[in-house]
């Protein structure tokens, strides 16, 4: 596989890299920001975090936010695996077959 550098120009490979990068970096950045939000509600924004979500409830905004954060983390994990199974795996197969055919010298 020493010469696989030439496959960097392969259209399917570039598509794979582009597609994946466009999904994983924004989602990861979003998760880090969402986590930062929770850390803010526990420190500088603790006054806001300590407010109740409604008059009659004892549940605070910080507590609700943390539960929501776990839900969002789980949803993103579930979404990503579905999306990658559907969109990335077929592209990977294409790259593989491109390489196999070029190795056969076609």
């Amino acid at each position, binding site marked *: 596989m020493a010469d*696989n*550098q030439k496959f960097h120009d392969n259209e399917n490979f570039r598509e794979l890299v582009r597609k994946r990068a466009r999904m994983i970096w924004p989602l*990861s950045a979003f998760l*880090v920001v969402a986590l930062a939000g929770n850390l803010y*509600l526990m420190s500088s924004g603790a006054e806001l975090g300590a407010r109740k979500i409604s008059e009659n409830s004892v549940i605070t905004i910080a507590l609700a936010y943390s539960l929501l954060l776990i839900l969002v983390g789980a949803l993103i*994990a579930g979404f*990503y695996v579905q999306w990658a199974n559907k969109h990335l795996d077929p592209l990977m197969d294409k790259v593989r077959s491109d390489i196999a055919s070029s190795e056969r010298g076609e």
Partner: protein
Amino acid sequence: MSRIIVSIRCMISVAFLFLVTNVSAVASAIEGEVERQAVNVFAIVIFFIFALSTLGITWWAARRTKSKEAFYTASGGVSPMQNALAIAGDFMSAATLLGITGLMFFRGYDGYILSFGIIVGWAIMLMIIAERFRNLGRFTFVDVISYRLEGQSVRVLMALCSLVVIVFYLIGQMVGAGKLIQLLFGLDYIYAIIIVSVLMVLYVTFGGMIATTWVQMIKALLLLGGGAFISYALLARFGFSFSNMLKASVDVHPMGQSLLEPGGWLKKDPLNVWTVGLTMCFGIMGLPHILMRFFTVKDAAGARKSVAYATLIMSVFYVFILIIGLGAVAIIWGQPEYYNGAGKLAGGTNMVALHAAKALGGDFLFGFMSAVAFATILAVVAGLTLAASAAIAHDLYALVIKKGKADPKTELRITKISVLVIGAISIVLGVIFETQNIAVVTAFALAIAASVNFPLLLLSMYWRGLTSRGAVVGGSLTFLFTIVIIVLSKNIWVDVLGHEQAVFPYVYPTVFTMPVGFVLIWFFSLVDKSKKAELERSRFAAQFFRSETGIGADEAAKH
């Protein structure tokens, strides 16, 4: 083969003898120990069933564990769903079940920071690490980092970092295990540690990754089942209203409404909150025993599925933790039967989840959860031991000392010897650290994982400019810096060295050490103008191609 069976039998009977003689011996010693719980028959029976069935599995797995591939990675033959359970079983420790619930019971909402940061970390690890990691390595995370880096120094440094993280993590588990078993089963601390160590050595030496995987899967199911049942029974007491349950907790807790507000533990101190949050989120991405599990599936898609399912499983578990931690207040706080003569919670702060089990399901559920806690520890230490033996035999012996030309049989023998040595060392360390503050030990392990292992892993995968000199110089300096900060923190500077005030006022140093790790590794790679550095940078394109597609990974696995 028959020799192995005989020695397994031998060791089982030794372990059995320890348990039996001491359960009877302890009955007379019990009055001296106020904290010790009455011996619970269910706990012992359930634990025995667990120990015997996992040893049975080990016996079965031993016949399938003949090669190095089988030993380290179960030859990539674990299915994604099995691996997801095993990852969850490898990661969810007794500290999670007992520690976080205890923290929330006393200090309220703040303790939950130890949970949500972890789920965020897992979701990020799924997307940016899992698949590439599987594509680039075979046995250990050192394989991945040194994929395109020349020379032995990177391997040596990273193997040492792996070992430091694993050993410190192991100390935390061992001491926790010893105390817990002492408490629940009435065994002496030293025997408790010996039993844990003997079982862990048996699983790993004979059954390798296959046995470890099964132990972790069974434990994960038991832990989830127990957590689900306690949460269900707790909510049922309050008409399945989460809100009513919390109202009842707020009513009896002296903190009142502030039980659910931020500030009960970390005092709204931004630096402290951030350093704990960052440690939880990024520390998990540098744990060698967790990362090693990604190699047990057949390809990158399998790694992706297993990490995603594991994230889902753990997020459910962390919701149970919240329900148990805060809900237990409503049924246990101030109830005399759970307090000792001194007015403290019987058995200490880590007993909340177990008292809740007793309140909701009587002696049976208490015994069940005690056995589950024991099983949980075993599953985690088995994973740690396996990763440590891989770091010694694969990274250090086969690739550094023998320069990749080790005889596979000798390597496998060295692996098994390492397991025995680690088992012995863990007993010694468990005894040495018995009375030490375990928080600082675990903080150190996670801080090194987040500040050295994680930056190196991320930069090696995504940054063309990383060189071996940058990795070694930057990594070692960060390692030293982390030690310095830990020494300056209250746990060492004040409690051990006897100074008046801590220079570094927090437990976790990550908020400083992780950025420092990134900057140092980046800087020393950038100024590296050597020929070797040029070669390493030029290899990035090929590495990137393989990390994205996995092409080449399959061929490599056949060697």
